């Protein structure tokens, strides 16, 4: 075991030189900032490109962004968005994967704003990421739209926001709407069970839903709530447990692959013959369930999105363009991303700025505004003008091999019916019997 042979010594020298060069150039690259031309508007898009949420949510959203941005830059959108670009500027996007957890997303957000010099950020499906990034958006004074995350706590954590907006609805609206639908459509049901993924979204959803049910249908008996792990996939035992409690209605906030797996398994086991399922994010499976979901399963789309989009020029254009580009009609995450981008265009076009609008100008324009979208008119009416107020819709799923999937018995509940008035704590509002709600 003597000294190093000449070949090994040379190899080490080469390796160490290479590594040093790599480190130095990485450092240099790191210090340099990405430039962008003064005639483009750069937007950062953050959504799941890997992991379990990418298939049902992240990738459809990214695809929708692609379609909509292309159309915006070419000026192909229907009125009132028929001008090319945003405020005349071509829209350029930087896509970042939302995976990795909130701490990592905080880091990526800072990189987007300071290294990539984006003018605005749109994104965030996971509530944890929204809650972490929200305060940073305010700190870095950058116009940010959260397009999908469903936590009701967003504007409790970020009090008095200036730059943070959310163009989607939260879990409270989803579940209060669900309770109203059941009250209208299934008034004679007696036994209620649930199955939720065991994490914040599932826990919050079940809590909001049961509180609302206690107000609207106090005679319902809650017999069971199963809480399997997220991404568990195999629900045999949970289905057995549900079967032994013999519910009439099964509420679930499960999404994506878990939801599809549960529906298929429960259907084969006969659970869904005994009970009707109400799925708060079910619309994302509208074109995928085929005959696996029994007719009569109640689906929600987190608002007037996807299959629940009303008939208007924008939704007609969007459905066609998205299907032409990507082969399937758009689901609700795709619609929500389109909505966020339309909100950005609205804010930019109406900001009155010359050239690139500043975050302050964009924020001032969008605050409390009403703009047209694929979902109808969006009223930024909550959280001091930063949170969208929109109707909540549920409908029954029906499928036939000839006509494909469709939604029947669709009911819409006004925004003021399913969301608490500004400043009121959601759970307190529900427990008090929805004071101030307007459900007519």
């Amino acid at each position: 075991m003597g000294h190093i042979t000449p070949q090994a010594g040379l190899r080490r020298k080469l390796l160490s030189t290479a590594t040093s060069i790599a480190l130095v150039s990485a450092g240099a690259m790191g210090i340099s900032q990405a430039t962008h031309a003064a005639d483009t508007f750069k937007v950062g898009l953050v959504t799941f490109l890997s992991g379990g949420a990418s298939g049902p949510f992240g990738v459809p959203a990214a695809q929708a962004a692609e379609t909509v941005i292309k159309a915006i830059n070419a000026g192909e959108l229907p009125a009132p968005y028929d001008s090319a670009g945003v405020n005349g500027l071509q829209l350029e996007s930087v896509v970042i994967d939302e995976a990795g957890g909130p701490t990592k997303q905080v880091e990526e957000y800072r990189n987007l704003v300071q290294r990539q010099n984006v003018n605005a950020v749109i994104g965030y499906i996971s509530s944890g990421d929204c809650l972490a990034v929200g305060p940073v958006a305010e700190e870095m004074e950058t116009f940010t739209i959260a397009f999908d995350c469903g936590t009701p706590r967003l504007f409790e954590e970020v009090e008095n926001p200036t730059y943070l907006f959310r163009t989607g609805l939260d879990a409270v609206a989803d579940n209060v709407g669900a309770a109203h639908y059941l009250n209208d459509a299934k008034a004679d049901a007696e036994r209620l069970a649930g199955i939720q993924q065991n994490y914040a979204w599932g826990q919050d959803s079940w809590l909001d839903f049961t509180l609302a049910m206690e107000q609207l249908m106090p005679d319902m008996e809650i017999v069971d709530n199963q809480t399997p792990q997220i991404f568990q996939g195999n629900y045999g035992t949970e289905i057995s447990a549900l079967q032994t409690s013999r519910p009439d209605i099964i509420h679930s906030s499960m999404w994506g692959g878990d939801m599809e797996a549960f529906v298929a398994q429960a259907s084969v086991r006969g659970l869904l013959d005994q009970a009707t399922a109400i799925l708060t994010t079910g619309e994302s499976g509208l074109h995928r369930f085929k005959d696996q979901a029994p007719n009569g399963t109640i689906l929600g789309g987190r608002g007037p999105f996807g299959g629940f989009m009303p008939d208007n020029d924008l939704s007609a254009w969007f459905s066609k363009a998205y299907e032409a580009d990507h082969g399937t009609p758009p689901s609700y995450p795709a619609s929500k991303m389109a909505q966020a981008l339309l909100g950005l265009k609205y804010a930019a076009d109406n900001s009155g700025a010359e050239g690139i609008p500043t975050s302050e100008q964009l924020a001032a324009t969008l605050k409390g505004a009403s703009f047209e979208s694929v979902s109808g008119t969006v009223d930024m009416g909550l959280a001091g003008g930063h949170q969208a107020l929109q109707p909540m819709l549920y409908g029954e799923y029906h499928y036939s091999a000839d006509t494909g999937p469709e939604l029947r018995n669709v009911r819409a509940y006004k925004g003021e019916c399913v969301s608490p008035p500004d400043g009121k704590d959601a759970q307190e509002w529900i427990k008090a019997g929805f004071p101030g709600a307007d459900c007519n």
Partner: protein
Amino acid sequence: MLTVWAILIDGLIYASWLFLVAAGLTVIYGVMRILNMAHGSLYALGAYAAASALGWYYNGVGDQLWIALAIITVCAVAIGALAGLIMERGVLRLMYGRDEVLMLIVTFAMLLILEDVMKLIWGTTPYFAYQPYAAMGRFNIGVLTVSGYQLMVVGVSVAVGLALWFWLERTRVGKILRSIIHDREVSEAMGVNVRRMFTITFMIGAALGAIAGGVTAPIISVVPGVGVEVIVVAFAVVVTGGLGSITGAAIGALIVGLARAVSIHTMPELELFIVYAVMATVLIFRPHGLFGQAVARKI
């Protein structure tokens, strides 16, 4: 009383699935002393291969159940063996003789790579090949129902267990493997081609993992990440039962399966911990797992 029956049935079904997943892992560890973190990726590969093959088949080629099942088996075994061969020959072979835990990290690196490779090949859309599952209907036991497909999985698991046992105990190759498990150096000294045995073992372990995935594919929606979710519970079963022991894997699977079924039916809040709690408890009383062998240390 109903709950007790439900617990027993559910526990058995879940345990059989656990055994299928864990069998490959424990075989590889027993022979090669490698705890393969990429086992979850092999499971996922099997699931994706089966799901896409079934999708192709049911999309116009035919709808015979038994052909579908054959497709699952063939695809899963093929892709598992192939992936195992590439992994072993390409990467692991370069690392033999190194520290055991370093091998664990190498398999962790392979897990990362395979996750993205699968995403590049199959995309992120969920694959949902439910037809065989739906076709096998259900059986009613009072108010409980059991799906025919899940019963078949139990059967497959038992068959695999018996086949492994037979192979290790009765065939020549099996006995050679057991000698390698016992003492690698002496086996090599006696003329056994240990390297070739390693390749064969890894391929078999990989194929087993892929079969577990393939068989599960019609029940679940195959999405990116199914592999990662499976690893930790597979590890827990294998460590509980004793690394390298097939019997251990089976008993470990039964214990974990029943414990989980008990927890879900009676105390759903504990479900998240029960697997780790069982493993930690077993290790406290039997530090090498239930059937693990204490290895003599050379001084």
